[in-house]
């Protein structure tokens, strides 16, 4: 990477692109593997972040199995399933947009990304109604209703709110990433020659999807 820096003016900038790949002064060569490595490491920290919550879930599930299965029935499986399908489809759309970019069809890629964004937004809307409904029923931490509930039920819903809220925040971050990538595609900063940003945004989106794949059965499907 330092191969021929000495022939350049010493006050030259170090050049680096938005996602951090290093560039030589003359042949702009991006270390895609490196950028991807960084992204994978980051995803790994995200998994550990949620991992802490899943550990709590496992411990409390073991302590209050009956309460947990009971409370799980109160969640709306239909809503949960719709959300699951939407996230899966959106993941597919993001993957398709990468193929589209590789095949130089910018428009198709943008359309796929736009569709994924739309699904992400719909997911949040859905979640909003789900949460709203539960809160209307008086199910939320510290509510009078919860004071009288069994311990397991309280913990189940506390975990439910904590984990789904953290997940929703990740959806928002993922949507922001996708939106930025779309802007970059429109301004030709992401092209068929250099689409590592799109790949990384895609990876992040898949992770958000993957985490939901765990959340869904743990909360909606336990009987």
């Amino acid at each position, binding site marked *: 990477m*330092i191969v021929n820096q000495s022939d350049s003016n010493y006050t030259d900038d*170090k050049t680096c692109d938005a996602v*951090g790949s*290093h560039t030589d002064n003359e042949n702009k060569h991006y270390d895609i593997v490196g950028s991807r490595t960084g992204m994978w*490491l980051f995803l790994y*920290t995200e998994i550990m972040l949620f991992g802490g919550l899943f550990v709590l879930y496992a411990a409390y599930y073991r302590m209050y199995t009956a309460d947990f299965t009971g409370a799980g029935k109160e969640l709306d499986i239909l809503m949960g399933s719709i959300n699951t399908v939407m996230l899966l489809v959106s993941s597919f759309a993001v993957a398709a947009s990468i193929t589209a970019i590789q095949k130089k069809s910018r428009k198709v890629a943008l359309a796929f990304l736009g569709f994924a964004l739309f699904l992400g937004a719909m997911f949040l809307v859905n979640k909003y109604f789900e949460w709203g409904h539960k809160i209307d029923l008086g199910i939320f931490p*510290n509510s009078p209703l919860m004071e009288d509930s069994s311990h397991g039920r309280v913990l189940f819903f506390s975990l439910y709110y*904590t984990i789904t809220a953290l997940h929703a925040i990740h959806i928002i971050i993922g949507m922001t990433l996708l939106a930025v990538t779309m802007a970059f595609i429109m301004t030709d900063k992401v092209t068929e020659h250099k689409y590592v940003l799109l790949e990384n945004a895609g990876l992040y989106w898949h992770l958000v999807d993957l985490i939901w794949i765990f959340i869904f059965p743990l909360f909606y499907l336990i009987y």
Partner: protein
Amino acid sequence: MEIIGKISYMETQATQPIKSFYETPSPSRFTGIGAWLLTIDHKRIGLMYMASVMVWFVIALILGLLIRTELMATGSTIMEAETYNAIFTLHGVIMIFLFVIPAIPAIFGNFLLPIQLGTDDVFFPKLNLLSWYLYMLGGFLAILSLFADGPPDTGWTFYVPFSVSTETNVGLTVTAAFILGMSSMLTGLNFITTVHRMRMPGMKWMEIPLFTWSLYATAWVQLLATPVLSITLLLVILERIFGSGLFDPSKGGDPILYQHLFWMYSHPAVYIMILPGMGVISEIIPVFSRKSIFGYKAIVGSSMAIAVAGSLVWAHHMFTSGMSDVAVFVFSFLTFIVAIPSAIKVFSWVSTMYKGSILMTPPLFFSLCFIYLFSIGGLTGLVLGAAGTNIQVHDTHFVVAHFHFVMFGGTGFAFFAALHFWWPKIFGIMYNFKRAYVAAILTTTGFMLHYIPMFILGIMGMPRRYYDYLPEFQTGNFFAGIGAYILVAGVLVMLLNLLISFKNGETSPSDPWGGTTLEWSIPSPPPLHNFVESPKPKGYPYDFTDIVRSNSLNSNDSLNRGSKL
């Protein structure tokens, strides 16, 4: 391409001397303060960390001195109990999250890791700058928490239920720790990617200098453990705001789970603290023994072993909190296992010096103090790791003495050694040796006088974190207080000596010590892109044959000059 590079280098050489990175801002459009605050040069970022970490270090040092002063006599000496609680919390939080964890990786790691790998920067330079800003933001929030609703009084461990029920501003402090965790995580991510992707062409894994190896192992622990702390702290905040009950027994939650999650991070974190320090020592010892490091592969292996095994021992902090006997047995056993790799390193350092031609210098002196103090810390760790003795000394001053021996006597002294070792490289100047020795001796003497009484007090049963104590603990506490003053005086002499070198320090050559790793082959201070010519992999990094040969010719010109200052 390379030949062209060389020729044009010689041309520039003829017309102008190579400018150091101080004179060449990067990106070049920024000047003045902007050249620092917006830089993406890993060396400048390292120095910005140095400035900010030092400020925190001195603040926390003063807080520690206040604690010790209060404890010099029974009863309220200079403060009330609430103030005392706040001060030991702040001391701990600042020392751990703002000094010990970032000090070596963020300062020396940033500065040296790319150089030791023979490259021109870390892989994600902008992310590197972002880490620094997160660090500053975290520090700023920590200060802010002093002024809103009173400073936190929970200790750096933020144990529930107290951290949830206390009226003080735990939320803000916890947020600060969360953000500092992010900063440390991003640095780790950056280092791993750099080591994997940016080693100079031809450099093999077993040719990486040990300091960089230790940073690599540390970075993995940072990635593995820090998110667990982040989520735990987040849960404390949620608990405080919404009363989610996840750690609240009245709602079915289990406070012990908090402790598990906390130590799942914080025990690995002690290796985040010590591994880079061990890396520093592994660089210094061979240089001043003029002898290849003993057991290079064993040291590399033990770093990685510590990273793995260190993640499996967290519950040794909780032997008294309520655990099954099986769990106590397993965690106690694993704790003993994890001491082995640390011992391997001590063994390697000592064996390196054996029959070497020792050249005494301040960095070596600090390193020797490190080995001694760290060994005591590690051995007392075993006393704590044995489940039986732990019951006796848990939560007493014995624990306080143990972790100060490893964190201060270990990481702290490694940090001092690193300062003295790389100072001439970073700033291109040499400090006064005599004052450095005086400082080192003062610091070490003060250190022993400060912490050894605490071992005894702990065994006698004096609990930690209490602001008053029974009359029989008076003598020990008094002497510890005297030790604290000597210790702080030593550190101040050391820092002043380093500062004075800016005024009348002699300029240092590129390799004042006779080091063999790449940073000693480039000018001091380094040029913007680190290397004037593309570096060539040297194979094994600790081959001193050339150094020994040239030494016998000119008998250490630069060192003699340094000591005469």
